[in-house]
């Protein structure tokens, strides 16, 4: 520890910066796509048609019941090459993280929707709204307010989970820590540096989200 080499950290600072930006980008893209997917799946799970609903539940079961790392490898080595003819780290990372986050977010959204009292749906339907209008104007706006904190936590999880993308040639933050370690055999410099950066990212995200939550009252 005495010969802690700040010089190689300085040398890598540019890479760490690029990696951090990619980490943030992956997390933002995945929480966004995951939320859209999660909403779609949540509504699918609530369908009256039991067979259709089961398909959506099975999706959630699969993605929550298998390791994210395994999902990332399947998508990187299997799905994306099969679809596009070649492997692509960033596309695979966003795909895997979004599909995985979608499953978790779906559960959050479903619980949020179900937490809105039946009377709200009945009142809106009694006014002539169809199911879609009732969901769109009455149920979801109320559910989203309750879901927001959980979505924030999902985003913070994604910042950390995206580090797994380092294994599929995606130059995010963790990838550069491993490059540094491979180049200089310096474990502490490599991993402590990125650990600190991850910590700063999650603490900052947490701070922003908490601030944001206060502004959106849960009515």
């Amino acid at each position, binding site marked *: 520890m005495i010969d802690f080499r700040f010089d190689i950290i300085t040398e890598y600072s540019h890479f760490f910066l690029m990696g951090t930006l990619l980490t943030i980008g992956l997390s933002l893209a995945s929480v966004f796509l995951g939320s859209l997917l999660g909403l779609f799946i949540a509504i699918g799970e609530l369908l009256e048609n039991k067979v259709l609903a089961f398909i959506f539940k099975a999706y959630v079961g699969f993605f929550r019941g298998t390791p994210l790392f395994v999902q990332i490898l399947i998508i990187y080595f299997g799905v994306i090459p099969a679809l596009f003819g070649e492997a692509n780290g960033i596309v695979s990372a966003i795909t895997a993280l979004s599909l995985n986050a979608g499953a978790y977010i779906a559960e959050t959204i479903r619980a949020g929707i179900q937490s809105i009292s039946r*009377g*709200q749906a*009945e009142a*809106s*339907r009694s*006014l*002539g709204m*169809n199911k879609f*209008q009732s969901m769109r104007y009455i149920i979801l*706006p109320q559910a989203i307010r309750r879901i927001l904190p959980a979505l924030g936590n999902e985003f913070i999880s994604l910042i950390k989970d995206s580090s797994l993308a380092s294994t599929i040639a995606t130059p995010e933050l963790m990838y550069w820590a491993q490059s540094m370690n491979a180049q200089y055999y310096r474990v502490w410099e490599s991993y402590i540096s990125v650990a600190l950066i991850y910590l700063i990212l999650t603490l900052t995200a947490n701070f922003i989200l908490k601030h944001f939550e206060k502004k959106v009252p849960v009515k």
Partner: protein
Amino acid sequence: MIKVTDLKKAFDGNVILKGINLDINAQEVVVLIGPSGAGKSTFLRCLNQLETINSGHIFINGEDITNPKVDINKIRQKLGMVFQDFNLFPHMTVLENIMISPMKVKHESHKTAYETAIQLLNKVGLLNKATAYPDDLSGGQKQRIAIARALAMKPSVMLFDEPTSALDPEMVGEVLAVMQNLAREGMTMIVVTHEMGFAREVGNRIIFMDRGYIVEENSPQNLFSHPQKERTKAFLSKILSSQNNTLNTLQL
């Protein structure tokens, strides 16, 4: 204008409505009374198909709304419903609560919906609450807004399911007054209530329901003064003794 024939409804094999027959004329105020669990709410909810019925028919202006081809969203626009626990939309202001359905369902312009809403707020005496949120209203105010919200769809019938049962006693009068005004203006109404004063004053016809049947129906005078059936008598004596001050709650 509403005709119900042999309506039956069961929940999981448990028969709640055992064959209801009823004719309601335009501008009539029908008050539905009966003990808790009689099936009054279920009956109202069947009328606007919040519950799917097992058998029987419901005709509204001659159209059989139990026909699966009927667009129920269209029918529901004609049947305003007021719930015991208000069910205002908490994330919207009072104005938005009233305007959302006319705008989204009937595609009324903002201007038209707004003008109607203001007019209705005036009618229920809550113009000063236009920009308030439901959480900031008292129970009586909430229910008056709920009535205005239902009226904004210009229904031809209003269904009230115990609209004053969740209210503090001092707020019952203001809601009943709004309902009475509505009746005076010629609205067709079906009202489930335990407010016997209101039933007597405002009702054109009282229907006594018990255990899934209509036991007895008559004009208020006849039903209250000369109930024919034992069950009606028992119910009335019980409720009137516990409610001897009801007539005072309604300040006419």
